[in-house]
């Protein structure tokens, strides 16, 4: 933790940490504190005064049908995004890992969508599935399927899941491929000599050795699905139809900025804060373990 050789001085180091401490205090701790403080009040309709309600906002939220629905929507959405993007990425990484030549080329071809913003991914998929001009919608129509994610809740969910997972495949592919390439070839070849076929080798050797990567990606992807997919949802469905795609972050935004319900929005922020902290703790626990082993 500590350097053996350190420089002398008290004011210089304080001066050096000052910019970061100031920015963190003003734009992080103060707003986070405000969120916790505001979550204990409800403002009057004119915004002139605040009334103390204690945990009232939380009690209200937890009994609110829409909030509970948003929790379930978030759970379904995050699980689907995580499973789809990790599944496709793992499949492609396994294929690329089997190549002697060319895996680098495929890596280059597959990693760059990482740079595509979730909001832009949303616009791209919206364009393909647009009810009026979408190409995919039109071909589905030829097959007799009437696609309309503006009205159909399941289709709306499917579209935001695919658009969110699509942009995430590169990231997962990169980590899976690195994880696969770190597995010693000799171990796998020894199993092959013993007559183990691909699936046996995968189940008994590759998958267990890959599990640290898989676990890490699981946590990171859930965090991604919780927060960074806001752009996808805002561009494609705006949380609709009938709040079918209103995930928790979207609800903080729509209650706080569109609905101007500050107390409730602050309470929702605090709940999200707790969820992220838990996920972070899980991740650090895991990293600690990885360092020790």
């Amino acid at each position, binding site marked *: 933790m500590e350097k053996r050789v350190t420089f002398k001085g008290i004011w210089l180091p304080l001066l050096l940490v000052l910019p970061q401490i100031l920015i*963190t205090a003003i734009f992080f701790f103060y707003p986070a504190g405000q969120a916790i403080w505001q979550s204990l009040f409800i403002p009057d309709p004119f915004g002139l005064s605040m009334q103390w309600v204690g945990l009232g906002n939380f009690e209200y939220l937890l009994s609110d049908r829409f909030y509970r629905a948003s929790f379930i929507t978030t759970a379904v959405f995050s699980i689907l995004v995580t499973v789809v993007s990790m599944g496709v990425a793992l499949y492609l990484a396994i294929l690329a890992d*089997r190549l002697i030549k060319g895996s680098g080329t495929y890596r280059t071809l597959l990693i760059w*969508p990482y740079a595509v913003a979730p909001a832009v*991914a949303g616009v791209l998929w919206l364009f393909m599935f647009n009810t009026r001009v979408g190409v995919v919608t039109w071909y589905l129509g030829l097959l007799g399927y009437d696609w309309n994610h503006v009205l159909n809740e399941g289709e709306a969910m499917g579209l935001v899941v695919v658009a969110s997972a699509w942009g995430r495949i590169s990231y997962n592919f990169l980590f899976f491929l690195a994880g696969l390439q770190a597995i010693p070839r000799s171990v*796998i070849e020894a199993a092959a000599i013993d007559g183990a076929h691909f699936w046996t080798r995968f189940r008994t050797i590759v998958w267990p050795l890959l599990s640290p990567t898989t676990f890490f990606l699981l946590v990171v992807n859930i965090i991604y699905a919780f927060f960074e997919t806001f752009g996808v949802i805002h561009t494609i469905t705006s949380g609709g139809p009938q709040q079918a795609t209103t995930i928790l972050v979207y609800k903080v935004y729509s209650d706080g900025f569109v609905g101007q319900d500050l107390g409730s929005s602050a309470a929702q922020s605090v709940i*999200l804060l707790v969820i992220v902290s838990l996920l972070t703790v899980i991740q650090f626990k895991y990293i600690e373990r990885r360092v020790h082993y």
Partner: protein
Amino acid sequence: MAEHSGMVEKRGAGLWLTHLGLIIGVAFIFFPIWLAFVASTVSQPEIVRPPMPLLPGDQFFENYSKALTAGINAPVALMLGNSLFMALGIAIGKIAISLLSAFAIVYFKFPGKKLFFWLIFLTLMLPVEVRIVPTYEVIANFGMLNSYQGLILPLIASATATFLFRQFFMTVPDELAEAARVDGAGPMRFFFDILLPMSRTNIAALFVILFIYGWNQYLWPLLITTDPSMNTIVMGIKQMFPSGDDIADWPVIMATSILAMVPPVLVVVGMQKLFIRGLVESEK
């Protein structure tokens, strides 16, 4: 490369199937972007009478120049400039304050060091999305709505970069600082002449990641830039859709989408090694 080929790699038919699977994957990744590109090169009537063509048309120049110079709410060239400014501000700002604070935390003993360390540590991974309403109020009180400071400063308040530099500085041999001290060089001299040049690769890798992070921001610019001339390109695309039942100007919107992708994609592909390094390091 024959000497490297083990017995578990595929040959013959299996090899072709492997390539086929990968090509299907690449096609799935590329298809939406290809369609967007095609849409940005054809005229509006070709799109509103589906199915749209699947090969590029001849309206490339018209659509892109219309987007860049006129746009719909604001010229896209202006939005590109805003995005560039915001992404550079976030990347450079975060790297600068993190280098300084990591240097102080690793190379000095001073009162409150532990406290500062934990204060910075606490900000790890709590995204701005979680505290949007109060952060918005802070920015509004400072009069920073529709300003670059407002776009940049709240997104600099995070500890990932500080952590990374701290870890890297811990691996720098003690002899270097020792030698600097014996030579009578002050701490800042050591920082600029030895530590900074040694951190070059780490700085570059982090820069790539932070640039993309800054460029792709959506919610925050959406909240604080109500003036179209301050919109960033990523959030500005959605603002180009008409409200109500009017038909969107798809060729211009798709040209803007392509323009929004080009800078970060160039950064990722052009600096692939640094990008992968930055990604792996910053997630450790």
